[in-house]
């Protein structure tokens, strides 16, 4: 392509970006894409983005710059993105369920709305897992439920964050099993292994990854996925055990509302291909790879919103 045509296409892109839909975007992408992670470096979202970065660059043919905008459990980055990002396809941000569902309900002003963007894809989930110390009296989930029925509030379950995936998992267990347990929030996943191994709590609700990581030092009673997690083949699902609990964190990526469909499709494809390439590395760690796009995104959002909304509103009323 000659320089002149590049310029021509470039100015077309610019015009489209300035709000002139109808003109087809010949060549997206043409310039570096910013990929914001609203969490600290080193967490699951960040590590995933680092895995994706080189593959996205190869597939899309432009630089993908991962940057971080942490704070408020993601809310600072999300509120800034919804108020400032342009629908050009050159700005995208990592999004996580249940955060984007729970924060706008629970906080007076989270600064963003659950639906005020276009979610391109959810590329993986990390199902909740119920983990107890190795020498725990609870050999199975039934043991724990039985004990919790006889001793209300005596079972203490740690987890990462408040009204997080872990907390909601514990709340759903309470509803499904008709028990009353005490949830102890910790800040992040970091302190949880110590809490289990030091018997500071009866057990923890955390992600399948920690279950994989702690196989030798702890017992995983159940995982909250539809099917068994590949990296934990011997651990039953809650469903198998008779409790309808499927949930955990969904991680994906969103662009501003009004981003042209062609661009969204290009990104969808790029993420799907990237996922295929990094599955080999991520699956053994306990991630469950998915490719939820388009209509399915709305379906998942609706399903989880209706599962979490009553729990959250209950909790809010009790605050």
């Amino acid at each position, binding site marked *: 392509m000659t320089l002149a045509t590049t310029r021509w296409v470039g100015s077309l892109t610019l015009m489209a970006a300035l709000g002139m839909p109808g003109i087809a975007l010949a060549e997206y992408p043409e310039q570096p894409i910013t990929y914001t992670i609203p969490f600290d*470096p*080193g*967490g699951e979202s*960040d*590590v995933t983005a*680092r895995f994706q*970065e080189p593959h996205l660059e190869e597939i899309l043919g432009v630089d993908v710059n991962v*940057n*971080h*905008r*942490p*704070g*408020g*459990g993601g*809310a*600072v980055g999300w*509120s*800034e993105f919804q108020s400032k990002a342009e629908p050009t396809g050159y700005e995208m941000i990592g999004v996580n369920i249940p955060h984007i569902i729970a924060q706008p309900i*629970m*906080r*007076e*002003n*989270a*600064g*963003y709305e659950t639906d005020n963007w276009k979610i391109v894809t959810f590329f993986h989930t990390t199902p909740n897992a119920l983990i107890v110390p190795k020498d725990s009296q609870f050999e199975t989930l039934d043991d724990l439920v039985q004990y919790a029925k006889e*001793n*209300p*509030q*005596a079972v*203490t379950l740690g987890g990462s*964050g*408040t*009204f997080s995936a872990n907390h909601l998992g514990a709340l759903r267990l309470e509803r499904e099993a008709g028990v009353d347990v*005490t*949830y*102890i*929030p*910790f*800040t992040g996943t*970091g*302190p949880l*292994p*110590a*809490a289990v*191994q*030091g*018997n*500071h*709590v009866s057990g923890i609700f955390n992600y399948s*990854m920690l279950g*994989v*990581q*702690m*196989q*030798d*030092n702890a017992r995983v009673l159940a995982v909250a996925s539809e099917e068994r997690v590949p990296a934990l083949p011997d651990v039953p699902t809650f469903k198998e055990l008779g409790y309808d609990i499927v949930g955990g964190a969904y991680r994906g990526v969103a662009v501003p509302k009004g981003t042209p469909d062609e661009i969204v499709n290009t990104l969808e494809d790029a993420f799907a291909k990237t996922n295929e390439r990094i599955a080999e*590395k991520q699956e*053994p*760690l306990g991630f469950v790879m998915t490719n939820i796009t388009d209509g399915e995104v709305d379906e998942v959002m609706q399903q989880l919103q209706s599962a979490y909304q009553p729990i959250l509103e209950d909790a809010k009323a009790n*605050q």
Partner: protein
Amino acid sequence: MDMLLEALFSILTLEGLVTILCGVTAGLFIGALPGLTATMALAVLLPFTFTMSPLQGLMALGAVYMGAIYGGAFTAILINTPGTPSSIATTFDGYPMARKGRAYEALAAATIASVVGGIIGVAFLLLLAPPLARLAVVFGPAEMFWVALLGLTLVASLSSGSLLKGLLGGCIGMLLSTIGVSPIGGETRFIFGIPALQGGIELIVALIGLFVVPELISMAAQGRGALPESGKLQGGAGSAIMRMGRHIFGKPINLIRSCIIGQIIAIIPGAGGNVTSLVAYNEARRFSKDPASFGKGNVDGVIASESSNNVMVAGSMVPLLTLGIPGAPPDAIILGVLLMHGLRPGLDLFTETGVLTNGFILSMGFAAMFLLPVGLLGGRLIHRVVVKTPFYFLLPSIAMVTILGTYALRNSMTDVFIMLLLGSVGYFLRLIGIQAAPIVLGMILGVIAEKGYVQTMLVAVVDPIPWLRLVANPLSIVLACLVLLSVATTLLPGWLERSGRMAKVDSDEEKPS
């Protein structure tokens, strides 16, 4: 033993040593820049290790970690600004030393202490990892609450002169730490409807604001550089290094005590280097024959702070490698690297993949040794730059780097405004005698204490008297007693003095004091 030798040979290659050297140097400079922490250094350099072999990647990150923790001492000593939070305690005596023209001595002492600390941490990790790891899991929420309180008693010793002003500073810090989303419970507090404040006040932002900005304002007000230009070295750099070496090894009790404190606190998950050096500093002062000289340029303060925070580098790997528990924030990134390469923390790491693990541990020892030449040379260079640059160039440059560093931390202009605001307020607080250190201490420890307390109360929800959980086991009782003892030893001298005086002057006896 074979494994250890094999590991030694696997890192003693040209490639290996160059990796460590580059890692240490890169870490040193990142650590020396205010706003760039060890955690960030590791996160930024992480992608470069993806293309390396697992061992080489771990060696590079271990070296960066070691260099960054040490690099924080440079700015702490030369411009009264901790480059990383673990060097806060280094400013207490390092900067007064520098103001007296003893900057290079302070740097030399910090370097030697860091090297020794780093190597001792590696020794602990190699020899005592399994028994020490057991210690990591006994610190539950209640114990963390007491550890935080123990740290807070430090406020008393930091507030030279007025205990009241020190406590006031501590309270300001604790209040600042409550802004944002609460660690337990998730409510937003004191955000005044501004979504950006949900992120709270980042410790580093406060650190930069409270330490650097007041220093810059007073430099500008007095029209002086960071250091007196007359600060000539007595008998050159070589003799300064020798003198410090003799001082440190001549009376090794301070060094040994600081290293042991460093190791113990490194193992406690959630405490990390910020707390390590503060506690080590406090104990050095408490056991010193001349506690009054601390804070005025006593080199033992620098030694305590810098040796203990470098012990932490390898020391915090004890719970990480054996149990998968990150002892300090940067360790979470190392954990990520291990997992990425399919290495699961646990005993397998020391048997099946022992060569790799031992290689990683030994490489941290080499990294510590490399600090000596890199640090002493780099130290001379940076020292000369800071002393020789006229203040009207130095001042804007520092201000610029500070603002960039603050922005880079979270890509946030809000943080820059918070930093400048805290800095301006901090300047006036300093004028009325409220120092930055107790404020920052309150910020660090307030959160830990809050978490520990609320978690303990939640666990105890079925108990008849919930707060008894705070002293429910031997360790928490011991820690609680230490807190009481620490308060008593701080208050007692003053109280005795007062009551002594009261005994002499009868008429004062009935007046409330």
